[in-house]
């Protein structure tokens, strides 16, 4: 049990800086997920916490103790790897016991601790097996068990579910969440999957190109994305963006349609962002609606996603969601209303969020 803090952590390879100063205080028992596209530096950041990568600048504290110069084993952390990294020649028991044995724990104490972790993960009957005799999900659980048994100050997860099939991923996700709640160990979890990030996290770090774009709870990030990148990355299907101008108290879109402008925003170029779920079909050509032409309809059953273009032009496609049984036809013209207060306005130059409309 411990807090974990990163203070302006930076990483450079030669002269190229790849992590540009990340700071966060993770509270004791908190589950923080680092999410971002591949190459954004999230794994590097995690590996710096683990002690597998050197920290170029800044400090990392675990449990109030600076760990910059400590070896991984001295940091009191445990890590779950993407490919599980189970020792292929050792049984499940020995895999889980290895770290404890190195720490000098033997005999009944060792057996008890491995036994307890195995029971929590439903691995008791598999303890004598070798990794190659296990299914993907079972291997994943052993990797979890190996971390759990150490009773560390913090768990580090490096994309632990990305090698599992979709169904197993959902059930493992729930298990990880449940387990973390029960042992209440501070956790740092890296993933590129925003659904995993949203469902697991107490707090999220959205990273892009080595920068922590936003650190907040999942719902706060969903409701108030700090900038265009975060807004586009979190949410599925992704948010629709429209270039627009604010002039005379109105938002002017490229096709000539107008929406009321938010208060307190000066005139100029902006980017308007609206999530697919906040665009609702309205009576044709209703006041303050957007007129779109349907390009294609993807039916999912309960819902359907409609791809359309604004006006008659060939502007970028926008996506909105309709009930599965009530969907427009291809080529049809549809009017859409924006749910009040759910549109986001970003500065066109800085891409930072400046208002909601």
């Amino acid at each position, binding site marked *: 049990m411990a807090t974990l803090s990163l203070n302006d952590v930076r990483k450079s390879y030669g002269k190229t800086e790849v992590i540009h100063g990340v700071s966060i205080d993770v509270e004791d028992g908190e589950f923080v997920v680092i999410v971002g596209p591949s190459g954004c530096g999230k794994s590097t950041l995690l590996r710096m916490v683990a002690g597998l990568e050197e920290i170029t600048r800044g400090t990392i504290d675990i449990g109030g103790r600076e760990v910059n110069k400590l070896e*991984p084993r001295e940091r009191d952390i445990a890590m779950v790897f993407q490919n599980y990294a189970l020792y292929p020649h050792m049984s499940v028991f020995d895999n889980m016991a290895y770290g404890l044995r190195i720490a000098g724990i033997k005999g009944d104490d060792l057996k008890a601790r491995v036994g307890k972790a195995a029971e929590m993960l439903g691995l008791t009957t598999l303890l004598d097996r070798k990794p190659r005799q296990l299914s993907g999900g079972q291997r994943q659980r052993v990797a979890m068990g190996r971390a759990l048994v150490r009773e560390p100050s913090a768990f580090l997860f490096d994309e632990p579910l990305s090698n599992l099939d979709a169904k197993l991923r959902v059930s493992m996700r729930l298990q990880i969440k449940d387990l973390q709640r029960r042992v209440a160990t501070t956790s740092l979890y890296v993933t590129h999957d925003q659904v995993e990030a949203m469902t697991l996290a107490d707090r999220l770090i959205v990273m892009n190109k080595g920068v922590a774009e936003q650190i907040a709870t999942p719902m706060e990030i969903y409701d108030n994305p700090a900038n265009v990148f975060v807004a586009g990355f979190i949410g599925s299907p992704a948010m629709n963006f429209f270039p627009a101008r604010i002039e005379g108290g109105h938002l002017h879109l490229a096709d000539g349609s107008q929406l009321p402008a938010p208060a307190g925003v000066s005139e100029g170029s902006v980017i308007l962002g609206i999530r697919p779920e906040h665009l609702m079909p309205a009576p044709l050509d209703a006041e303050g609606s957007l007129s779109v032409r349907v390009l294609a309809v993807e039916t999912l059953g309960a819902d359907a996603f409609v791809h359309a273009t604004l006006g008659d032009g060939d502007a970028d496609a926008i996506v909105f969601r309709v009930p599965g049984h009530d969907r427009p036809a291809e080529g049809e013209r549809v009017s859409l209303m924006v749910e009040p207060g759910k549109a986001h306005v970003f500065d066109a130059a800085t891409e930072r969020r400046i208002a909601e409309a």
Partner: protein
Amino acid sequence: MAEGLVGTSRRSLTLAHVLLILGCVIVAFPIYYVTVASTHSLRTILNPPLPMLPGPETIENYREAVSGGINRIGGVGVDRLLLNTTIVALGIAFGKIVISMASAYAIVFFRFPLRMVCFWLIFITLMLPVEVRILPTYKVMVDLGLIDTYAGLILPLIASATATLLFRQFFMTIPNELFEAARVDGAGPWRFFKDILLPLSATNIAALFVILFIYGWTQYLWPLLVTNSNSMNTIVIALRKMISFADADTPWDLVMVTCVLAILPPVLIVVLMQRWFVKGLVETEK
């Protein structure tokens, strides 16, 4: 291809068996021949054709060879020759494995200044076989007082790039994550080597052991150079001496026995450890 699959007719299958049996006869015959010869009396050997079945002198010949017969021709007992050869073969096999594992471990799992220079220095020794530096190497041996010593027979042969390259290649297939998991579990260099790397290398080591044992046992030029005293000869060199000084009195029956004793241990190792040997051979070279 399995029988009955594409185009393996009954006739071509029969032909295949005939050719293979013929091939095996040719390949095995020289060894069979000397083995049979070692069981006959000198008189039978000197009056060809040699009978194609083992003769009545088996026990007699071998007893005589072991109890001093070979000592009389070569000036050293066969037990000593076998001991020397075994020491050399095992020394080379173990020495090479230990040294090349250590250097491959350093090259793959550590970063240190001039790492690649060290690697190339080892690699280039591939291009300097004993044969191209015979005299100066001999001089080094003389200067270091290594003539007629086991160290002299073994040491110069245990630094080989091939074994180091093999281990390097194998170590590089160990996933990064496995290494990192071990580090997070608290394993330092020694524990990682002993608990993870060594068990995972077991089959490679076994395969390499067979190949190196054969390599050591069949050495010729090197033992020829660094042994003057008969008592330090390997069995192969001793055999060559017996033959080159052959005359009317040479007890060929005992020479044949020595020959069988020189062939038998490595053949047994190759046949008994066939699985590792074949795997090792095909993988070392590729």
